[in-house]
């Protein structure tokens, strides 16, 4: 049953307990109320691998997102290399698009005057949108961060963004979900000094974001995700989490600071982030959504889902496509021999998973001469348009001649493949099985 509660929304929001008088009880009550209007996360199974659905999004109340969710990464609102016409030829389920500020800030003036948000501006009306700060497909290189503003790498060079400006952009973009601004320049190699600074910056950006958020007619109904920086250091992470938990507007958490984005994330093995992710998750309430960005390899994604992460992005698709490769990895449902609660697994299973790393082939590189006269599809049995209508030999030719159709066809295949992978994961975890990569 559906009730139109939106008219009560403002009344309730005006009862927001804020500032110093906030109490744990009032936060909890407020969060429960908030769920009706802003975003609801229904956790369907927290016993084994968690899955659930995100619904009642204030801007698109009729759409549901089944978790684990794949956010399809965009450049300025468009999926890389694909116009809307071509994107519609991919039959995989696109649940939500990710709009990173770093590649879409250039649209700000246009979107602001347009008044209908970034999705409709980018020709993507009808898609859900999630706004993040950085593009996970692009390596972060640190600029001079000031206390009041953060530097962002864009295709047109580095820009500096204040919290005020960030929130103005969010108001213009009108996303379905967005991340609070944070200082993302930290990873496992960061100095203590940097971690300290990034945490302090992030918390002060967050407070400032929320101050504007609560006053903004457009944004106060939009779910906000709090970003947990602090590298791999749990002391900083804990400090940020307790800060974020003090604000009832936070609908989900981004576990950040694990890496510095870009292709290097592929080299991360699960064991190098398992502990920090696991410990961080322990500090977070079960009933909120958890996000991790970055182009992790498929087996790492599977393990992160088993740990309890709900939302990922498709930056691996962008990276693999841009290096001229096509996905060929496969997946299978594996019967669970061991019970697993919140990612606590037995030791010997871990070993077999580590072996997966070597045992499957992620991609083939179409620039390779061996495909010169290979008239087979990119991947045997794939139902995407690129595999149905074109050959490896033709796509090899497109890469040799640097023709723009090459990346288009690879993107069609790779996105189709990765969307199918996530669809399979959603189905398999609901059936109570593990996912294996082959």
């Amino acid at each position: 049953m559906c009730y139109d509660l939106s008219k009560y929304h403002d009344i309730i929001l005006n009862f927001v307990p804020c500032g110093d008088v906030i109490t744990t009880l009032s936060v909890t009550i407020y969060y429960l109320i908030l769920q009706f209007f802003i975003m609801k996360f229904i956790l369907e199974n927290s016993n084994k691998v968690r899955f659930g659905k995100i619904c009642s999004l204030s801007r698109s109340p009729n759409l549901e997102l089944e978790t684990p969710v794949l956010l399809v990464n965009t450049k300025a609102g468009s999926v890389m290399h694909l116009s809307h016409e071509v994107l519609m030829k991919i039959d995989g389920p696109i649940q939500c698009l990710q709009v990173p500020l770093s590649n879409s800030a250039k649209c700000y003036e246009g979107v602001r005057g347009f008044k209908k948000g970034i999705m409709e501006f980018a020709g993507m009306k009808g898609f859900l949108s999630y706004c993040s700060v950085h593009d996970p497909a692009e390596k972060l290189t640190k600029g001079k961060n000031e206390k009041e503003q953060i530097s962002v790498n864009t295709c047109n060079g580095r820009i500096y963004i204040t919290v005020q400006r960030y929130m103005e952009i969010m108001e213009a973009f009108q996303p379905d979900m967005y991340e609070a601004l944070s200082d993302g320049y930290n990873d496992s190699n960061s100095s203590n000094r940097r971690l300290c600074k990034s945490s302090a910056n992030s918390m002060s950006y967050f407070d400032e974001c929320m101050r504007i958020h609560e006053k903004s007619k457009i944004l106060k109904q939009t779910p906000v995700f709090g970003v947990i920086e602090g590298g791999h250091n749990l002391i900083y992470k804990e400090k940020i989490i307790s800060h974020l938990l003090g604000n009832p507007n936070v609908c989900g958490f981004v576990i950040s600071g694990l890496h510095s984005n870009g292709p290097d994330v592929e080299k991360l093995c699960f064991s190098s982030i398992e502990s920090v992710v696991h410990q961080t998750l322990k500090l977070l309430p079960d009933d909120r959504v958890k996000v991790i960005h970055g182009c992790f390899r498929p087996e790492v994604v599977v393990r992160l889902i088993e740990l309890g992460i709900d939302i990922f992005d498709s930056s691996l698709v962008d990276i693999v496509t841009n290096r001229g490769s096509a996905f060929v990895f496969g997946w299978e449902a594996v019967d669970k021999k061991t019970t697993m609660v919140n990612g606590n697994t037995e030791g010997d299973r871990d070993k077999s998973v580590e072996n997966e790393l070597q045992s499957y082939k992620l991609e083939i590189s179409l620039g390779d001469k061996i495909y010169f006269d290979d008239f087979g599809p990119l991947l045997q049995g794939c139902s995407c348009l690129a595999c149905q209508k074109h050959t490896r030999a033709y796509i090899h030719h497109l890469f040799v001649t640097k023709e723009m159709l090459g990346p288009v066809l690879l993107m069609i295949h790779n996105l189709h493949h990765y969307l199918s992978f996530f669809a399979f994961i959603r189905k398999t975890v609901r059936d109570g099985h593990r996912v294996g990569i082959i």
Partner: protein
Amino acid sequence: METHANKCLQFNIIKECSVSKARTSFMVLPHYTVKTPVFMPVGTQGTLKGLLPEQLEALDCHIILGNTYHLGTRPGPELIKKAGGLHKFMGWNRALLTDSGGFQMVSLLSLAEITEEGVKFESPYGGSNCMLSPEESIHIQNAIGADIMMQLDDVVKTTTTGPRINWVDRCIEAHQNPETQNIFPIVQGGLDNELRIKCIKALMERDVNGFAIGGLSGGEAKTSFWRIVNLCTDYLPKDNPRYLMGVGFASDLVVCVALGIDMFDCVFPTRTARFGCGLTESGQINLKKQAYQCDYRPIEEHCDCSTCQRYTRAYLHSIVTVDTVACHLLTVHNISFQMRLMKSIQKSIEEDEFPEFVRDFMRKCFVNKEYPEWIVEALSAVNIHLDCS
């Protein structure tokens, strides 16, 4: 010619303009029936600038062009043959036309030298000397398998002493697939009326199904350009298609259709898209300009292409020349623009309203009726008079 057993081109004229030399027809080719007058987008290397074959079909594109020089170099005739021809290799089921490779060679390679044997050149992918003879050009074009092939012509010498007619014969002689592929000879002769007429007369003695007019997409004065086109269409047989090579600006297309041309090709619409420009009835707009930052109209009002249905100038402005999507979107629109223009031309000829169409088109194209003199002259030569006052 009518007795040719395996005629793989039928040219069925639907209607001729009662005033000018314009006509509309169905040109039946082995892979597709092409409605003329037709504009053929250029897909140099077996792909049309980032568009999928089904996007071209959605744009109602009937025939596209491939470049023999490029395809002969990469991936090479052997591979294309192994793939079953270019149609299969690139996944395009409609008609294809290939040039001879000679023009590309002379314009791309500074060291190309033309002898009686053919075009001698240094390979750009390794220092060896190569020769593109009429036989070799046809050998490659046979492997590509386009519905229409071009003879190899001497683009340099023709302007002085007249075309090498024997190259046409060598091409026809070398042709292996007369049942499935046509050869069009090329009328050369520069800006010299006598050479052009001499060439046409000689070519008309050959067993061919259509004719191309070459050597007119360079920097010649427009007043010479239209006179030569007009001369050629006067002398060429009426019951064969006439292809004017390398011409594709909207106003040139309209004028040359009036002069009796049926087929055109040009890289302009796709090239200008890559530079961030969109074609409109009143000329092209450069979307990089700041003026479009908050312009929420489509590239062209009333355009039914997939780009204009969904995207604004403002969005294109914010991603132009940075994201490849902008280029794809502009390419779709620009090809749609050319296709729509040709369709309105065809329709107006069928309804015998072509002269009105031309006057209307020119009014939109040139504000305050400031028509270029050559257009006024060319059109009045075929009895279409622009109202200049």
